[in-house]
């Protein structure tokens, strides 16, 4: 932490890790934890911007969001939630043992935490690949290309694992569903949710099954416009990717943090007198967990009841 040159030229006693500008350990711990909490506060506002975007579009186009959400795999999402919760537990215990000064348990638990973090990212990778294969990535050219009919030359991105050739003249789509997507566009054809809503609307004219925005947002000249609906669904997937992507980014940072922490713990840096870094990293890790606790229902579950009921 602070260099010795700084710590020595002080008259009063310096425990390890006390920085020069502080009088004593208490003051330092107070400052560091307030600082960390303020950092988390700004993180909340940072994600808050995205949640506002989500809120606005969700409240205006619930059907499109439900449709999109039903194409996310709630099983993987739920699994990830559990994985993160476990990692949170191990993290909390790490802090506990750090305060107790139990070096081995610290290291073990940190390794466990990292393991679960890695699992989380692995699952995310699986999900993203699935979206890629079924043309649900909201960015043109970032989806699996599959030619049906005549081949178009793709003018768009070439993914790292594709050659320009494979990008331009892609082979046929994957086995089961006829997946035709020569340019790797975002493909979405299913408008069943709206037609259902229209049926129900016809059933009871009083009830409002579509929001005002939807009544204009999905239709052109009176009948369902699949393209307009697709745009709204694409916005859902855009929000999904940005939010989960940003969250995953935080996970990666967290893993780095953990690696460093594990190393220091291995060196036996932390004990009852000095465990602030562990506690602070813990706060960060739990924060990332909390974000996911909200992302899971908001992204994965919000349309379930339409299909199950």
């Amino acid at each position: 932490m602070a260099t010795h040159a700084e710590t020595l030229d002080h008259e009063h006693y310096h425990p390890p890790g006390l920085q020069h500008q502080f009088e004593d350990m208490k003051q330092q711990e107070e400052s560091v934890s307030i600082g960390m909490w303020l950092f988390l506060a700004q993180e909340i506002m940072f994600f808050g911007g995205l949640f506002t975007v989500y809120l606005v579009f969700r409240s205006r186009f619930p059907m499109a969001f439900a449709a999109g959400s039903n194409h996310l795999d709630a099983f993987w999402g739920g699994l990830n939630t559990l994985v993160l919760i476990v990692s949170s537990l191990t993290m909390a215990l790490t802090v506990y043992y750090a305060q107790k000064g139990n070096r081995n348990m610290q290291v073990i638990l940190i390794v466990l935490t990292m393991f679960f973090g890695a699992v989380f990212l692995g699952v995310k990778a699986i999900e993203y690949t699935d979206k890629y294969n079924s043309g649900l990535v909201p960015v043109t050219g970032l989806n699996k290309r599959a030619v049906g009919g005549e081949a178009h030359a793709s003018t768009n991105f070439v993914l790292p694992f594709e050659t320009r050739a494979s990008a331009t003249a892609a082979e046929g789509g994957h086995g089961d569903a006829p997946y035709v997507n020569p340019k790797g566009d975002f493909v979405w054809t299913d408008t069943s949710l709206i037609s259902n809503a229209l049926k129900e609307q016809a059933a009871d004219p009083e009830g409002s099954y579509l929001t005002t925005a939807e009544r204009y947002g999905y239709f052109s000249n009176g009948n369902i416009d699949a393209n307009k609906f697709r745009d709204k669904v694409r916005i859902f997937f855009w929000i999904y990717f940005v939010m989960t992507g940003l969250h995953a980014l935080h996970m990666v940072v967290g893993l780095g943090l953990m690696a460093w922490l594990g190393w220091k713990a291995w060196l036996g840096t932390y004990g009852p007198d000095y465990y602030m870094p562990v506690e602070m990293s813990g706060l960060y890790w739990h924060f990332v967990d909390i974000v996911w606790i909200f992302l899971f229902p908001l992204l994965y579950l919000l349309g379930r009841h339409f299909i199950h009921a």
Partner: protein
Amino acid sequence: MANKQHEHAHDEEHEHIGIPGYLGVFAVLVVGTILTYWVATVDLDWIFPGANTLVALLIAFTKMTCVMLFFMHVYWSPKLIWLAALASFFWLAIMFSYTMGDYLTRSSGVFSP
């Protein structure tokens, strides 16, 4: 003497809720997750449209509270930490409510032809 006082200052801080406590919180979180998953598959729109979302959010908030209070030790933290935690949510609420305030009142008769 500086470190003396912080030594014994720590003694009461260390024992937060102990391992059983942490496991208990963990159990609550797991139950919450399963519950929210199950509840999402039930159509609650007969109560009022969007009831599902409300329930899901309530569960999420409960889980968050558990994590913050016990895993993040807010429960034992000075007022200032509580303040910092609450302030951010307060500001978030401002952003949500005022932005939605615009969208929800926008399609009012006043502007319409």
